[in-house]
């Protein structure tokens, strides 16, 4: 693929309800910040990609209404919608559009305003002959897979709670993060309200209102716009069969994420991700998922994820900090969540991470997760 880099990022303050902003204004808030970060004007944007899940807000073709808030009026603009991977897939779409030669600069904006609809109900609007009759929302579905994963790997509730604590501690250094719980303890996570055994309230991501944008630029433009562009070394996507029961031991196997990561590492020349990646921003909707993803992403052997969190390997200051932003566990506007992963990974390479900056980041991983097991993996680096 031709050289492409991320040269600017912007996101909104995320919250349970952003009553002060319409969907369009939320999109504008993130888009304007990304332009400011990249030091470009609206006229510099050649095309726009929007990422959003329409039924969560009850909108058909939401890009029609919010497109101009993303500076898209009179420009090429399409919407990408693939469940939880909408944001990462939207970023990959922007990357492909720039690499195609069609555009020099593409703005990708993901957003969601969960407070305006009923997301858990929206998520049950799947197959009307099967899923809809026996739906239990994202929490129940995830809990099923967690029961298998725990039985198979011996993962403990305490290890998962440590992931939840790490996420919220990191989020406290991120001024944009939704949940701000700097002093959260493992005991508090374990004492939080049961949602679907063994998942508790604090094991889960919140539902957030928010938007995030990235500026994708061609090689020549990127060098002019940013002293440290975040170059796209590789990007891979895998989708999976449609029903939860189709997927063999979902969290333990996760063949989509494994395969997407394998392809992305091969494209980026990464042999040992734990050593060669400097930071990772991964899409973990549940504390347990982060542990499962450590294995699928090759950070450790199968069954060793619990050890990784216990030994602080993925903490700030550890060998491979995972989710310095606080992750999806701290902020989850679905259509934006994948864009946030990519933006935060890029921010680490730009060296603009503020209090959540990891020292000397040269290579970063961003991942997306959606539906039952769809996955994206993107490797960014400080060199093309």
């Amino acid at each position, binding site marked *: 693929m*031709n050289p492409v880099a991320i040269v600017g990022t912007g996101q909104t303050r995320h919250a349970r309800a952003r009553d002060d902003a319409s969907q369009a204004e939320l999109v504008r808030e993130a888009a304007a910040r990304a332009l400011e970060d990249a030091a470009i004007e609206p006229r510099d944007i050649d095309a726009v990609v929007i990422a959003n899940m329409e039924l969560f807000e009850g909108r058909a073709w939401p890009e*029609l209404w919010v497109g101009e808030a993303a500076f898209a009026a009179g420009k090429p603009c399409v919407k990408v919608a693939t*469940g939880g991977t909408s944001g990462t897939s939207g970023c990959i779409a922007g990357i492909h559009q720039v690499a195609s030669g069609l555009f020099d600069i593409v703005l990708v904006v993901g957003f969601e305003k969960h407070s305006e609809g009923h997301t858990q109900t929206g998520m049950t609007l799947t197959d009307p002959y099967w899923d809809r009759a026996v739906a239990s929302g994202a929490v129940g579905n995830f809990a099923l897979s967690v029961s298998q994963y725990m039985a198979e790997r011996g993962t403990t509730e305490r290890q998962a709670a440590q992931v939840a604590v790490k996420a919220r501690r990191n989020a406290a250094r991120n001024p944009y993060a939704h949940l701000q719980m700097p002093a959260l303890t493992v005991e508090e996570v374990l004492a939080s309200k049961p949602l679907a055994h063994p998942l508790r309230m604090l094991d889960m991501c919140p539902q957030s209102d928010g938007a995030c944008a990235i500026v994708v630029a061609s090689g020549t433009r990127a060098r002019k716009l940013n002293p440290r562009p975040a170059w796209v070394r590789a990007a891979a996507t895998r989708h999976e069969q449609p029903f939860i029961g189709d997927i063999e031991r979902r969290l333990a196997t996760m063949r989509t994420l494994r395969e997407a990561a394998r392809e992305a590492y091969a494209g980026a020349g990464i042999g040992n991700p734990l050593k060669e990646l400097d930071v990772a921003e991964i899409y973990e909707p549940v504390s347990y998922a982060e542990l499962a993803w450590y294995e699928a992403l090759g950070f450790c052997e199968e069954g060793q994820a619990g050890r990784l969190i216990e030994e602080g390997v993925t903490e700030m200051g550890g060998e491979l900090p995972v989710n310095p932003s606080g992750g999806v566990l701290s902020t989850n506007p679905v259509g934006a969540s994948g864009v946030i992963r990519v933006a935060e990974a890029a921010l680490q390479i730009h060296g603009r991470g503020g209090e959540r900056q990891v020292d000397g980041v040269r290579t970063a991983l961003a991942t997306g997760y959606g539906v039952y097991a769809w996955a994206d993996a993107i490797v960014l680096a400080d060199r093309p």
Partner: protein
Amino acid sequence: MSAGALRRPVYVSGIGESRPVPRDPRAIPEMVLEAVQAAYADARCAHTDIDAVVTASVDLLDGLTASNIAVTEVVDAVMKPETRISSEGLAAALHAAAQIASGAYDAVLVVAHAKTSMADYQGLTRWALDPIHVQPLGADFLACAGLQAAMLADGDPGAERRWAKVAAERRRAGNGTFLIPSSVEEILLSPVIAAPLREGMCAPLGDAACAVVLTAGSAAVRLTGVGWDLDSHALGERDLRRWDGLRRAFARACAVAGMDPRGMPIDLVEPSCFYPHEEEMFRAATAIGERAELSPDGGLFAGTAPVVAGLSRFAAAARGVRAGRAKRALAHGAWGPAGQGQAVAILQAGA
């Protein structure tokens, strides 16, 4: 190479359709499977030859969250990259072309589907309009088309009869799966549904699916020009008498193809016009001469479905080029109120 050109040539190697019918008794995956299998057969390829999939569908039309879940298996996206462009089928094809040109993939399957028989289509389009200032009024895409037609008909007493003639002409060219008035007089007597538009003037909507295989490897039809555009959402902010978005999308497609928009020798034009007044705006925005053959198979007036329309026009244009009826053809897609979204593809004989 500077921005504005496709870095790798893109070819159309396979086309398959589940033709529009008023009410297809089958489920969406079954309609889509027919189109995909036909496209593979046409491309003489196996599912293992396809690197990636781009789908086009809209959740609210399908009554499903992430409606691409329902078709993941039939579009052959299991353990493959799939991107859903939930705007319009032609925009999905143009994105697939960008994927190939980027070097990411060598063969991409593009699939669009919609079943308007499932639900009250115009009722659902209300949920696409600004929920603060417009949706509470009860307006829908049909009302937006009516306002656009009204702008064009103003001071033009011959417009209604002229449009009826266009609709009748297109209908005669199309085949007869849709029971619709086809004479000018019948059309002019059909009920007014959004004045000045009458029922008989509208392209009949039904159920359809379309699949196209795009490749980096040479084939009989080459995709040389791609362009798309999103205009302002509010009707009152646009000059509704003109499709400026289409003008921009067309200019971009010509630039990508390395051609002068005014001197474009296009022999075959396949516009996505759901109403006859749109055909007039289409001609004005693209400056397509009278010499070009326009919608020889009746275009959308032979029956169509939203989202699928643009990709089906792409398929029709590719068939024309492949059959040698045209050296160069243009396909058009449109979505949103009064054609807010616009997409253009330019196809020509390959290799």
